[in-house]
């Protein structure tokens, strides 16, 4: 009887139970479904390989329907059913109510792929709250570092104001780019959302005295893809760089066959992206397709897969599956091996991925392909109390 009232505090348990409170329906579902699927895939694999020290991983899932109230309710229900660890949605704000419930019950809660750097701060939502993503701060800074490596000196920042993720990606991009000696020659903003019209912004950019070497589009799909498409339609042909949320088949479809010189910092290059596959990555994609009938449509899926590896690793090292022991083990993460190489997860001050190579991916006449890997040594300090910044 693993699913009775014996909660995570009982270390003598022979199963390890993860509760998934993800959006399987509603407008946030697109962000949660694939990473969730990939996580399940990884759990299956671990169980087939004998589990964590012989203990099987059990899962319980609740659809939180993209609603913050439901997240809290589902988390409450999961925790009272005795889970050892809670996985919350990819979106920080949707995660928060669930994380709050977990924090109160001293059960670790890990957001499957939230990119908002605030998720990393153990003092905000609480010290039981983690995110299995590197964060938009890392993405922005990585984009900047890569651009500098291309020899580009002048950047133009086109900021999507709709969500926190895009705002901090833009902010960290600009800070890192200037730290590295580049100049941001201009910036502009648009409200974002799914009804994008940037003709005014494009006009302003075209009439700029110094034309930039590239434009950093701090946005997300599908609005970001639309913005890039409209830039190109307005006749702006300089390279475009952006964060990971631009990743996916949809970018390619939106910008069309003739678009080129579009780059973004993704997590992996697979399926719709060519040139980056290692054997392990290929195996991940085939396994995924075998289980779910289609290839993953963005590299976020891999984050869910990797998260389970990190959780299993920590659980294997933990003294017991009690919340406190699990948390301690998570905070003491060691690099784990993933299809994209070694990834260093959490520490006691930084509750998100500390070190992960990002894949720079480029769009060239309708093809997405791997351009290279980019690592950064440090995140610039922009004065927002980022606990992972140097």
């Amino acid at each position, binding site marked *: 009887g693993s699913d009775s009232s014996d909660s995570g505090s009982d270390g003598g348990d022979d199963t390890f139970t993860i509760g998934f409170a993800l959006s399987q*329906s509603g407008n946030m579902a697109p962000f949660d479904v694939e990473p969730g699927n990939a996580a399940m895939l990884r759990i299956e694999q671990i169980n087939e390989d004998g589990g964590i020290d012989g203990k099987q991983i059990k899962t319980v899932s609740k659809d939180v329907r993209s609603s913050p109230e439901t997240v809290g309710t589902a988390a409450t229900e999961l925790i009272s059913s005795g889970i050892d660890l809670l996985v919350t949605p990819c979106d920080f704000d949707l995660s928060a109510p669930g994380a709050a419930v977990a924090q109160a019950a001293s059960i670790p809660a890990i957001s499957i792929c939230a990119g908002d750097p605030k998720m990393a701060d153990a003092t905000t939502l609480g010290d039981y709250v983690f995110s299995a993503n590197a964060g938009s701060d890392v993405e922005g800074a990585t984009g900047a570092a890569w651009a500098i490596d291309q020899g580009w000196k002048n950047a133009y920042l086109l900021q999507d104001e709709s969500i926190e993720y895009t705002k901090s990606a833009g902010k960290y991009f600009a800070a890192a780019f200037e730290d590295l000696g580049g100049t941001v020659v201009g910036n502009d903003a648009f409200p974002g*959302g*799914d009804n994008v019209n940037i003709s005014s912004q494009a*006009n302003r950019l075209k009439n700029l005295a110094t034309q930039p070497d590239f434009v950093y589009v701090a946005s997300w799909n599908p609005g970001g893809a*639309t913005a890039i498409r409209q830039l190109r339609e*307005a006749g702006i042909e300089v390279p475009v760089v952006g964060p990971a949320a631009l990743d996916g088949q949809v970018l390619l479809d*939106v*910008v069309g066959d003739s678009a080129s010189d579009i780059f973004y910092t993704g997590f992996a290059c697979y399926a719709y992206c060519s040139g980056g596959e290692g054997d392990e990555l290929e195996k991940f994609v085939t396994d995924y397709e075998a289980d779910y009938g289609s290839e993953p449509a963005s590299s976020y899926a891999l984050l869910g897969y990797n998260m389970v590896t990190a959780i299993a690793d920590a659980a294997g090292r933990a003294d017991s599956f009690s919340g406190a022991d699990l948390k301690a083990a998570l905070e003491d993460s060691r690099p784990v091996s993933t299809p994209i190489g070694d990834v260093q997860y959490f520490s006691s001050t930084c509750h998100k991925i500390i070190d992960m190579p990002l894949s720079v991916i480029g769009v060239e006449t309708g093809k997405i392909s791997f351009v290279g890997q980019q690592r950064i040594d440090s995140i610039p300090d922009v004065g927002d109390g980022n606990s992972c910044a140097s």
Partner: protein
Amino acid sequence: MIMEFLISAVGLGALYALLTLGVALMFGVLGLMNFAYGEILLAGAFAMYLFRNEPWFVGAGMALVFAVAVALLSERLAFHPLRDADPVILMIASFAVSLALQSIARMTVLPRARGIAPEPFLSRRIEVLGADVSVLDLVTVGLCGVTLVAVAWLMGRTSLGIQLRAAAEDFRMAALLGVRPNLVIPAAFVIVGVLAGIGSVVLAARQGSVSADMGLQPMLIGVVGAVLGGMSSLKGAALGGFLLGAVTALLETFLPTDLIAFRDAFLFTALIVVLVVRPQGLLSGAKVRVS
């Protein structure tokens, strides 16, 4: 440069006018503030995605077909049984329809956003009066004009138009005079479907993506524009939509960068002010006497 700003403002205005026209027609004719209008647009845009590998006009044609089909279906299943209900109830019913259609779209064909590649012809830019103008904007303006004239003619000059307006106002009396509501009201939905279809073609060409919740913003624009222009007058509604679009574009042009995020706040505050000054909308339609 000013010219370019102007043309893009006019282009957006024309798109909004198109959106508004459909909402206003449905309201003016059926008293139905249709929140499911967004999903009718979605159906059209989805057709554009489905037929993205066919020639562009096939996709556009199918967009009309899909939009009309969804419009008719929603009439049959939801609005038909509610014909005598009051406007608030109809509005809520339309919201339920919207929710249902969206859930179905998400569960079946559109679990996540899909892209539609740009049509080379539409994404070209040409020189007009010394300004560099996108063909899409010109096409939008043209479509909007033609649609407006066609709808005005249909509603004002044809027997169908008279019957429609009569049936909308007093369902039973119209039936007593021989208007066949079961033909005429679906006809209104067909017209609205066609309008939405046209709107969705333009929308898809601009946004390049289709997602289950893409209809929400255009629907809101339609509703707000229609009220701004004066609900009972189609001309007013088109004007309202046009202004909404043009002002949006102008705000984006003239607001300083750090205030662009507040565009909607400015826009909707202005809307409230206009409503307070002219509660009946910019152009009020047929006057109705109180006695």
